[in-house]
């Protein structure tokens, strides 16, 4: 039952930030839970209208069991992301744009995949060494903790251990299924 509550909570969060054109389920959640007044993302100006980002083509990861659009802030892997989505910048949800360097040090989130209902460990590796991508700025903070627990915080520039620490964009890489589900 706890899990169920969590799942609902997750659903409502998505609605708060993104009025998705593709996720009927989250729209159902909206009606059900009645979340309406939650403030919009400060940085999501461009995505307020549609949930996706205007002028950015929708994508799929191409993987079975990986639903949703990696260029949309409400894509399931992005539950604790903060930054420009590399999928919109020449990379993908799990790879960096050409010419950047993926940070080996990172922060970790746990996101539920709606396709199999399982919680996955997601590694939010930053891509580094070029200027800010400037497309698809997205901020979600599920289980995000303050900077005194850095491994669970998305405000830190995780371009650490790279030849340049200049931040370009963020990925959400699947590490595996969370053991404590």
């Amino acid at each position, binding site marked *: 039952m706890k899990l169920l509550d*969590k799942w609902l909570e997750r659903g409502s969060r998505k609605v708060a930030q993104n009025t998705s054109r593709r996720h009927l389920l989250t729209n159902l959640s909206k009606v059900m839970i009645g979340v309406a*007044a*939650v403030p919009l993302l*400060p940085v999501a100006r461009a995505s307020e209208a549609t949930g996706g980002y205007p002028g950015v083509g929708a994508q799929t990861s191409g993987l079975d069991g990986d639903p949703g659009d990696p260029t949309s802030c409400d894509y399931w892997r992005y539950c604790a992301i903060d930054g420009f989505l590399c999928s919109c910048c020449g990379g993908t949800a799990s790879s960096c744009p050409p010419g950047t360097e993926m940070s080996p040090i990172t922060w970790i989130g746990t996101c539920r995949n709606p396709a199999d209902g399982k919680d996955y460990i997601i590694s939010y590796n930053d891509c580094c060494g*070029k200027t800010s991508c400037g497309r698809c700025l997205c901020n979600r903070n599920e289980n*995000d903790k*303050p900077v*005194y627990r850095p491994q669970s915080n998305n405000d*830190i520039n995780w371009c650490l251990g790279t030849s340049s620490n*200049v931040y370009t964009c963020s990925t959400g890489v699947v590490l595996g299924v969370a053991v404590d589900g």
Partner: protein
Amino acid sequence: MRLFSIKALAITTLTLVVGLAQAELQPEPIPSVATLPAVYPDTWLFAHDVNFNSMIAGKVAIIDVAADTQEFKGFVDASMMASFVESKEKPLLYVAESFYARGTSGERTDVISIYDKSTLRKVTEVVLPKKNRAQMVTNKYMLNLVDNDKYLLILGFTPASSVMIMDTETNEIINEISIAGCNLIYPAGETGFASLCGNGGMKAVDFDDEGKEISRVDFEPFFSVDDDPLFDKPVYIGDTAFFLSYKSLVQPIDMSTSVPVIKSTWSLVSEAEAKANWRPGGWQFAAADETGHLYVVMHKDGYNGSHKFGGSEIWVYDTKTQQRVNRIKLKTNAFSIEVTRSDTPLLVVNTIEMGLDIYTTDGEFKRFINVGDAAMPIVLHAGK
């Protein structure tokens, strides 16, 4: 016909203009560069534009939030998740920032850039030899002046966390103190500081004239990072740092000595408000005025992950009585707030649209100030 009437009307207009003619304007001097007073009026505020879209080109803008004209006084650059602090004792501004030889690549140089308040010219820069300045979405606790501005404390993060101590007389880095497992710099006592820790505890360190550590206290965990973490951005009222939790707890900590004292908690919300999930949130989502009132950006229907999105209201508390004394409904949702230290304090709101809405502390809207067309001024420092 149409052309004719145009010209006829134009002649009339031109005559009118000539009728208003004045003495000729005199040639103006070149070059001419404006300056500012060495002591800034108390309605001036520092708005730090983190410029996510071009992080190597951030700035700290100086703005008179009480002004309806010439409100933008100037700015200093602040590159790559910089941090900023104003000196109260000296006419100086400090920016901790990072540069690359080729903009975004090449050799990295971390510096403290020191500006003269009057000219906004760089007086000097201090290079941080280990290039380990913390780069985070900036807040007020990454760069701090203590002991009447004698020491500048600079956060390091690699991800090993540390505090560098710069002597502001000699502009030398005199020591670096590890705060492993903890983060940020909360001034405590004359020369001490505290940091919150990943286990829900706190560390407090004091140092001597040479920057050497003379005491260190590790506090046992006193809050649950997993269940209801304290935000890392407290508000100081006098010597007390008011930490707030995701779920509306207030945790005052007495910072008057180098060994802080953890005080009793209270709540921002009633039982009914808690049920409606009224919660604090945003970026710099809380501020205080000189009377001890605490201002908190609140949102309804909070949930796991809603803590950085700002809110539609600001709730005002008397921290002595622990009672809410006002509830301000905003024109536009707040992301960050600040209150000036002026006689008539002003409530400055960086909205989720990334411009400044200025209110009286009673919630009367006064004016809107644009910090820059692409600016993201998410950290606001009231003038000291």
